[in-house]
């Protein structure tokens, strides 16, 4: 049904281009953040900055007691979406065989089919709730940008096309999924999706700053 030229373009040139944009973009953005010039902290260190950084990277996975009761939906839906997506991305059998064949040269055990479906459903429900909350809650709506909506919708479409192509019975569905992934890869470095990488230096920086001052953050 799809012209072989389009198929070859999606599988070949566009794939190479999107992976290049993603790799260079992410590396460049992280380098800018990490190597940006900052004021030297002249205060006497009261405690280890490194310990504070490491601690904060992990402690921020749990919302603080004061805030948690007000953001229950964010916490539950957020974990549902991110854990589900993590499972889909790294433990789906087609993804593992793709990474093995084209990128890494090794594989690991995949999720059974039922677990894949369950992970997908959890991720979909979480993402839907988060995006709708962004649209419906007046505070979330006011602080959301077009980029946030595009990122949410693009992620949703990538997940959906992937699940629709799950049976691998139609090459067209695989190509559609791959095309959406390529759009996401190109969009990724220029969007809020970068938080997938920046959350670590962000938390570490805050943790180091507080840690050096002996503040329990």
């Amino acid at each position: 049904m799809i012209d072989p030229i389009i198929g070859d373009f999606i599988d070949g040139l566009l794939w190479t281009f999107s992976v290049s944009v993603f790799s260079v973009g992410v590396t460049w953005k992280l380098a800018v953040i990490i190597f940006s010039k900052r004021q030297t902290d002249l205060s006497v260190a009261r405690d280890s900055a490194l310990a504070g950084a490491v601690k904060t990277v992990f402690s921020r996975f749990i919302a603080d007691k004061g805030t948690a009761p007000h953001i229950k939906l964010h916490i539950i839906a957020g974990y549902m979406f991110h854990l589900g997506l993590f499972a889909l991305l790294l433990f789906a059998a087609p993804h593992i065989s793709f990474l093995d064949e084209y990128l890494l040269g090794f594989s690991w055990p995949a999720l059974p089919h039922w677990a894949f479906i369950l992970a997908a459903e959890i991720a979909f429900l979480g993402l839907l709730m988060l995006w709708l909350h962004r649209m419906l809650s007046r505070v979330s709506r006011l602080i959301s940008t077009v980029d946030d909506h595009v990122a949410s919708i693009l992620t949703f479409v990538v997940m959906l096309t992937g699940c629709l192509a799950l049976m691998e019975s139609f090459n067209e569905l695989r190509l559609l999924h791959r095309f959406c992934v390529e759009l996401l890869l190109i969009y990724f470095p220029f969007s809020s999706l970068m938080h997938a990488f920046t959350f670590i230096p962000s938390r570490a920086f805050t943790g180091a700053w507080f840690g050096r001052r002996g503040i329990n953050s």
Partner: protein
Amino acid sequence: MIKPIFRIKIEQLVRPVFLILLLFVILLQNSHAIDTPQQQGISIKNPGSDLWREVRQRDTAIQGTTQIKSVDSNVLINPQADRWTRFRVDKLINIGFIVLGSVIGVILVFFLLRGRVKIEGGLSGNMVFRFHDFERVLHWVLALVFLFLALTGFTLLFGRTLFIPILGHDIFSLLASSSKEGHNLFGPIFMVSLLMMFISFVKRNIYEKGDLTWLLRGGGMIGKSHVTGGFFNMGEKSWYWLVILIGFAISATGLILLFPSFGQGRIIMELSHVIHVFGAIILITVSFGHMYLGTLGTEGTGESMKTGYVDIKWAEAHHDRWAKHCHDNNLVITADEYARLQGKGKVGYEPVSTTAGESGK
């Protein structure tokens, strides 16, 4: 002069030809003589026909024996399935088409005749809080998943009839395959959303005194005087219970269809399919009405699921008992404050009461 090698007389040629002809005539007569009694009385049955008649089993469900132990594994061909297929193709699809088409037509005619139902005296701009963020999120999750399931289900049920002539077999097969995957994937999400909807809204949807009057008066369409309503009126409560009860029926039958290896036989599967489709058609048709009333049909209704607030005049028109409760408890906020809460107000404006509106039920 060349001498002939063989000298053949005419008599020598005629004699064998005559004998062959004679033999042919005798054989022809004999064969006719053999055929005649066969046509008259003896009929030899195709030995395979009895076998296949037994296999087809006609109207009876004859069960054989087999070493394969599973449900219905001892039934080679189930004639009931033929009846179900005919029912699906000849009746179910036609009924679905007629019902869905008719409801769309009725709504269209109603809208053309009645127009948008406006609030008497117009909207005031003063608002009252009705639905929390979580309740609205839940409503839209359920609505979006329901629409997705309706569209994919529609493709699976009507696709052969409707889409193949337009799209062709190749594109339809792709569409049907992805619809099936999508339908199976989002089905359980619908169930979870439905359960959350049930828990969140059940308390306010229990029928109470006065609801029957609302129903008998057609929600105010019959008679001239105003018909009263609480937080939810009888129509909304009935829609809620329809969604919950038929939704759970669709969910249960969907699970039976989704996991055919849990011991259910063919008849249960066929019955589940029929209930699933009929339930879905009922919900979809009523949802058309719900969508119409929430958007085009009634002024001010859509705001409740968009911002969580409704105009107090809307509340007085449709839910007067609840509106009175809001007035009595000082839960009504002004248009300016509402604009400020939506991020559209004047900078520096100090509200009289920021949280009062959100505590009301």
